[in-house]
């Protein structure tokens, strides 16, 4: 046992050395046309060795450490408490949600422009995560290329506005529908795949779309992206200082107030809020409908689902399509918010972040996903000094979650149904 432990710890420490030495300790430098290999500062080597020692010590005491971690829930003051009564809990939850939404409506008028901008981004991530939750959390299909549908939504708006001068409100349904259609088309080839294989193929699809956007320069502008994407209007009123489109009026002139850049930011935030609430409500409804139950049945046991007459094709495609639809929604809002998009906004890391939100929140649980979206988007902003280590902290948080709370922040609670006694 002990000998085994030491051998394992030694192995881990050596792996740490092998991995970190070339990455941190060696650097390639371009001097004119030549590339030279140079070492790093002594302090870096000391740090690498210290890290290896730390890994070694941790691995030796791993069992003790993990055991202690496993006991952590006991420290949770809510752990031992009686579960709340069913209808009481439902009432409390709906009050809480209404409260949050009302608060969110008034909040932007109280804070700085930067905060509102960030909050809009959070809402976009909430939409994305709720959509991906359908595919991964409910239908159990591990999709690593979800960002592709986000890109389709954003680029649909960008291109249509560039070539036809379409408005945000027209682009919103078109972007979502087109993204949904892409979801369905990409769903066909992966119908038979599951688990890891599905993950890898969807990962590939995500990259294909991004590379396509990057290289189809004549249409998409390639890495230069597309700019000048219009902001949403409110019944034909624009939020800019000057009216860009003929026939529109401007918001501040109509209401006879001074122009302020904040109006636009707040308006976008409110649109994102309304769309996020709509997304949450629709998906919540889906979860209580035959289609939502079919998704979950397929996740739970595909063979049993088929034996009861569920068509795998229809169920999977509907999950892909609806998930992609909401990504398209989010993409359109994103394009409008940024005013400029390029393939760089749709890299694999985005897919990973959205997936992390779903997993952190508790697969299938809406409230959990919303909380996780807030946490994952806002925390890195608060800790800007650590931005270099963002991914590291992210990874560590994921590992800790898997050990401590594999079911996510707020695991799903099943809907309770009252039955009338028959006969």
């Amino acid at each position, binding site marked *: 046992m002990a000998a085994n432990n030491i051998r394992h710890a030694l192995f881990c420490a050596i792996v740490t050395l092998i991995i970190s030495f070339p990455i941190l300790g060696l650097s390639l430098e371009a001097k004119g046309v030549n590339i030279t290999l140079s070492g790093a500062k002594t302090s870096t080597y000391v740090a690498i060795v210290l890290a290896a020692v730390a890994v070694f010590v941790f691995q030796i005491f791993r069992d003790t450490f993990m055991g202690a971690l496993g006991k952590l829930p006991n420290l949770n003051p809510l752990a031992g408490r009686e579960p709340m009564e069913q209808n009481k809990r439902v009432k409390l939850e709906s009050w809480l949600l209404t409260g949050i939404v009302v608060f969110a409506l008034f909040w932007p008028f109280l804070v700085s422009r930067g905060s509102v901008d960030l909050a809009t981004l959070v809402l976009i991530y909430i939409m994305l995560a709720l959509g991906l939750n359908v595919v991964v959390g409910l239908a159990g299909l591990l999709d690593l290329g979800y960002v592709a549908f986000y890109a389709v939504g954003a680029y649909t708006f960008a291109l249509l506005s560039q070539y036809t001068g379409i408005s945000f409100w027209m682009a919103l349904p078109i972007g979502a529908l087109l993204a949904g259609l892409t979801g369905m088309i990409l769903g066909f080839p992966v119908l038979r795949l599951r688990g890891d294989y599905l993950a890898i193929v969807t990962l590939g699809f995500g990259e294909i779309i991004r590379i396509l956007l990057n290289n189809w320069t004549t249409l998409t502008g390639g890495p230069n992206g597309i700019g000048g994407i219009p902001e949403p209007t409110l019944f034909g009123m624009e939020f800019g200082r000057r009216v860009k489109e003929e026939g529109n009026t401007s918001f501040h002139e109509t209401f006879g107030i001074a122009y302020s850049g904040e109006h636009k930011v707040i308006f976008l935030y409110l649109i994102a809020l309304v769309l996020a609430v709509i997304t949450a409500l629709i998906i919540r409804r889906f979860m209580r409908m035959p289609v939502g139950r079919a998704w979950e049945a397929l996740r*739970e*046991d595909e063979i049993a689902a088929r034996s*009861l*007459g569920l068509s*795998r094709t229809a169920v999977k495609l509907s999950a892909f399509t609806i998930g992609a639809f909401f990504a398209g929604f989010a993409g359109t809002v994103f394009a409008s918010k940024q005013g400029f998009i390029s393939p760089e906004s749709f890299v694999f890391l985005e897919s990973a972040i959205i997936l992390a939100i779903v997993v952190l929140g508790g697969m299938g649980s809406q409230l959990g996903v919303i909380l996780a979206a807030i946490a994952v988007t806002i925390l890195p902003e608060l800790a800007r000094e650590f931005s270099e280590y963002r991914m590291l902290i992210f990874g560590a948080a994921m590992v800790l979650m898997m050990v401590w709370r594999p079911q996510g922040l707020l695991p799903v609670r*099943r809907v*309770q*149904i009252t039955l009338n006694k028959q*006969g």
Partner: protein
Amino acid sequence: MLEVQNLSMRFGGLLAVDGVSLDVQEREIVSIIGPNGAGKTTVFNCLSGFYKPTGGKVIFEGKEIQGIPDYKISRLGMVRTFQHVRLFTQMTVVENLLVAQHRHLNTNMIAGLLGTPNYKEREQKALDRAAYWLERVGLLDLANRDAGNLAYGQQRRLEIARCMVTEPKLLMLDEPAAGLNPAETKELNQLIVSLKEDYNVSVVLIEHDMSLVMDISDRINVINQGKPLASGTPEEIRHNDDVIKAYLGEA
């Protein structure tokens, strides 16, 4: 109503089912028995569309159905259970029954989102049907439990209820008594007889243990190493020399 002619299924070099024939009339309980590995489950998998048989015909209500995809077969009114219970374990008991009734529900997404009267009416009917069958198998009080948390015997009964809410014409049960205690087995046998007599369902029953099926079967088919060994009424099977030699003798 169901006729199986000369069914065979080959896995590579192994002929798991070889020339099995059987027929099932309305309101009849027909059993398939045979030792472990005889090919009983494979026959079910061919009938229910999970495998495409390599030979023979399956005729259900006058229509050839061999090779039709599994989900379509269950829509024709032929549903099955599994040798190892297959429930949607993280869904509640009643949700399991609702999944099974998707054909009775209004699955139009727009209607569902809007909650149209037709949608609500059908949803309510499905809930009532679920309640009825839960009560019938004694699980009504557990309706909102996760299916995976039920006791083993309860899971077995839920699986049968889940088939019955689809209102099948033919029910195929794969070793439903496996793992049950004698009292539960007796209850199960009563339930199966009642399905036939009160609900006009035909039943094809796989059993490993022959004595269990003697009481309730109308006819019995014995297969051994994929080949049909004998068929007839329980009385005939009991006195069939081949069966005694191959099957009872070993026990």
